[in-house]
């Protein structure tokens, strides 16, 4: 299959205008004749559903939480990028574009990234108009902070709760549409399958999580904005119920899965404390504005941290990357933390930690300023660890956090399945092999407010969508398959709980396909996962029934998909014989331990097609063609 990314012609700067100027349009009074299904209410889904409702489409919107306001976007802390250049520090659309491409280690599609940088300024305007309480200067203008991988200050923030405030903005816009009846909201409804009719995405099958009822919904287009799959690692910074089921089910129905091995390990998370641990907590990257990262120079350092003098501390990021220092990008910072711990210099239990130290910033700026900037994060740290970070440095360690991979989409954010659109973290489009901080919120809102509402219109206006309803055989078949699957999960009546399998899968992925991967480790993973998956289906113990509120069943169903996805993740990592961004193959590194790309052979998007259970997936390549920029070795030194 040839992948057509449908990138518009003309110079990079004009591509988006070019595309918009030549889109087919649905006239205003005809919009109400179309129904768009939007799965997800995070920044991408919430913004898209609200905007589509405003345009006059009928929207059916789904989420698994009890309210759309609780989508995982709510947890984002640090901020959102926007190329406003309010600081007069030389920022521009081009610079944001270039930083993002470089941050992604030259593995993202140029045209998409340029558009992202271009609309970033509209996002800030939109959110400010909605009343998002961004940080402000005394004169009343908007304030900025710095984030990793950039040398300008372009990150807008609402204290340490930026995601919350942006999501509430989108949620409020969404509720306004719910009130008018333009959007119908289905909370606590989980999508379990995608339905195709005549090769087009026409609907979904969902489970009502309160009653267990399986139900079908039909529309003229389907949009998946269902977030990332970092929970495949079990321990991650994602919310407990984040899952891959929506995009994985779509993948099994024909949508290509792109770059699954591009996963992001975030450098600053609270270290794990025990085997009962249910998730890891992120300490926002914004802390690296004022916190300094270090480890003792001596192995087995016994002195209390405040008695280790300056000369015995290694501020390794400042030492290795003098021009970016503590704001080196995430993949680089995580890897360096891992190296220090591998060298036996790590701090805290098990030597799995490094210090993030605020003492100098507190001395320089005063505790009040630090409290104003990061108060809620400091409180959270203290609640979890019982240590006061105003007095002792935080201990941090990398954790699975974000997934750059996702369903393959073209320039219009449509997958290879006509009528199936994918937005936000669920698609692969903008971050290449590594995402820069404060860019996921930007991408979610860019997709949701400014791209999807237009491109879906073009698809609908292009015609060819036949009348159908949910009595169509395709729906009935999908419903039957789901019922069989749920019965199988409930019927195994084995010995082990879902969590015990999920943890084991997560450990395999973390050990063999985490911060560092090698041919051997990946081959090991690819032998272990299928065996465990097979056992899962036979020896699983899920209590209760399917016609009921049953949280174990929900989880069992999600973990079943993580197994299949995990295998593809490792297969992709094995196939990519180079290191780039978050994908670090130990065989491919420079003498000083940096990722070594192989542009001649691997400057492509790996888009995998599902061929059936226990079948080898099929690889499709989309070559990455750069018109504007030169591929360069990424350096933050």
């Amino acid at each position, binding site marked *: 299959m040839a992948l057509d990314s449908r990138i518009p012609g003309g110079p990079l700067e004009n591509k988006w205008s070019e595309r918009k100027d030549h889109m087919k349009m649905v006239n205003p009074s005809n919009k109400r004749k179309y129904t768009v299904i939007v799965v997800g209410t995070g920044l991408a889904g919430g913004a898209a559903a609200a905007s589509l409702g405003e345009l006059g489409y009928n929207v059916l919107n789904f989420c698994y939480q009890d309210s759309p306001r609780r989508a995982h976007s709510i947890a984002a802390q640090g901020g959102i990028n926007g190329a406003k250049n309010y600081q007069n520090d030389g920022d521009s659309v081009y610079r944001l574009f270039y930083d993002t491409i470089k941050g992604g280690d030259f593995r993202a599609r140029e045209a998409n990234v340029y558009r992202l940088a271009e609309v970033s300024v509209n996002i800030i305007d939109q959110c400010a*108009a909605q009343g998002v309480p961004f940080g402000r200067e005394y004169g009343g203008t908007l304030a900025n902070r710095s984030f990793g991988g950039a040398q300008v200050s372009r990150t807008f923030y609402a204290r340490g709760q930026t995601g919350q405030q942006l999501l*509430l903005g989108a949620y409020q816009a969404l509720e306004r549409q719910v009130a008018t009846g333009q959007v119908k909201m289905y909370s606590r409804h989980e999508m379990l399958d995608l339905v195709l009719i005549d090769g087009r995405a026409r609907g979904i099958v969902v489970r009502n999580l309160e009653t267990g009822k399986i139900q079908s919904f039909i529309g003229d287009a389907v949009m998946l904005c269902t977030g990332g799959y970092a929970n495949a690692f079990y321990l991650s910074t994602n*919310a407990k119920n984040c899952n891959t089921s929506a995009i994985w089910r779509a993948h099994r129905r024909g949508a290509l899965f792109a770059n699954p091995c591009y996963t992001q390990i975030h450098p600053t998370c609270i270290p794990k404390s025990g085997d009962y641990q249910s998730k890891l907590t992120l300490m926002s990257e914004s802390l690296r504005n004022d916190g300094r990262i270090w480890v003792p120079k001596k192995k087995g350092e016994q002195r209390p941290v405040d008695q280790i003098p300056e000369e015995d501390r290694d501020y390794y990021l400042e030492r290795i990357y003098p021009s970016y220092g503590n704001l080196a990008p995430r993949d680089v910072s995580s890897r360096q933390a891992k190296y220090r711990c591998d060298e036996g210099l790590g701090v805290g239990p098990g030597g799995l930690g490094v210090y993030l130290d605020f003492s100098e910033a507190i001395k320089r700026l005063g505790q009040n300023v630090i409290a104003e900037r990061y108060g809620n994060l400091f409180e959270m740290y203290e609640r979890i660890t019982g240590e006061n970070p105003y007095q002792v440095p935080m201990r941090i360690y990398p954790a699975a956090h974000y997934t750059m991979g996702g369903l393959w989409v073209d320039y219009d954010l449509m997958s290879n399945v006509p009528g199936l659109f994918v937005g936000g973290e669920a698609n692969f489009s903008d971050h290449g092999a590594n995402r820069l901080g404060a860019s996921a919120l930007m991408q979610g809102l860019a997709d949701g407010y400014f791209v999807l509402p237009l491109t879906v219109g073009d698809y609908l206006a292009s015609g060819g969508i036949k009348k159908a309803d949910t009595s169509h055989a395709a729906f009935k078949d999908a419903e039957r398959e789901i019922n069989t699957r749920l019965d199988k999960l409930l019927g195994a009546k084995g010995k082990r709980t879902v969590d015990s399998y999920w943890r084991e899968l997560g450990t395999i992925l973390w050990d063999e396909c985490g911060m560092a991967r090698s041919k051997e480790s990946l081959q090991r993973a690819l032998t272990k996962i299928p065996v465990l998956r097979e056992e899962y289906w036979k020896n699983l113990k899920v209590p209760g029934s399917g016609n009921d509120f049953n949280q174990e069943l929900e989880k069992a169903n999600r973990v079943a998909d993580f197994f299949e996805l995990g295998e593809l993740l490792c297969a992709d990592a094995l196939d990519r014989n180079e290191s780039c961004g978050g994908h670090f193959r130990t065989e491919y590194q420079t003498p000083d331990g940096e990722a070594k790309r192989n542009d001649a052979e691997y400057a492509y998007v790996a888009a995998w097609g599902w061929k059936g259970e226990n079948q080898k997936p099929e690889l499709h390549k989309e070559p990455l063609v750069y018109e504007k920029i030169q591929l360069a070795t990424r350096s933050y030194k």
Partner: protein
Amino acid sequence: MSANGHGGMKLTLDIWRQKNASDPGRFVRYQVAANEHMSFLEMLDVLNQDLITKGEEPLAFDSDCREGICGMCGFVINGSPHGPTHGATVCQLHMRFFKDGDSLTLEPWRAKAFPILKDLVVNRAALDRIIQAGGYISTRTGSAPEANSILVPKESSDIAMEAAACIGCGACVAACPNASAHLFTSAKITHLGVLPQGQPERYTRVLDMMNQTTAEGFGHCTLMGECEAVCPGHVSLEVIPRMNADFFKGSLKKRDPKAVAGGA
């Protein structure tokens, strides 16, 4: 129940078990072993693993982010919404605040407007409907002016942020002897009402949202302050008099439409 090898402390839990909305429900006693590094919800995870292994039905409780921000979690521990430490969600409550031998009673939010779905899980859709009634600034995507053309004094922005920090968990309602949702509703009214962007709809918003709050069956507010004490978003009681002031003004403006033309 077996001590499950997680060490340290042994606790006795009396937990509200209710199969569904029509089941009358009852307390059931469990023994669980925990250690001080666990979060409260991790302790319940451990309990559930034991229950499942023994072939019993695990306890239903809501949670998602487990970082204190999504508002999904929440139940009452020994009479206190989100537990005894106050100012944080139950997912942020750690076992080091408890000691060996403690007896704890766990029950769901109790309020007419929050029907119980199962065990500790309730339906909070009423809060969404209050937002639907007017908890937004009507601005269409794409119609926004340049962000810095709207200057917002830092002080207003700070007040807005502090009110907007509400996570919508419903603890305020659970804490209130009248099951009032005033802290929730007035937090949103304050957030939007102190910002220049929120002025055009300021008085219709307060009337519509207040009417909806009453229609949902939440109680009235007698300013007892129990809500503020348990609020994990640290929303201050101050938002309630702010809302009341707007409500009176809004009601007057409604009776005298000429006054409305004058805006805020």
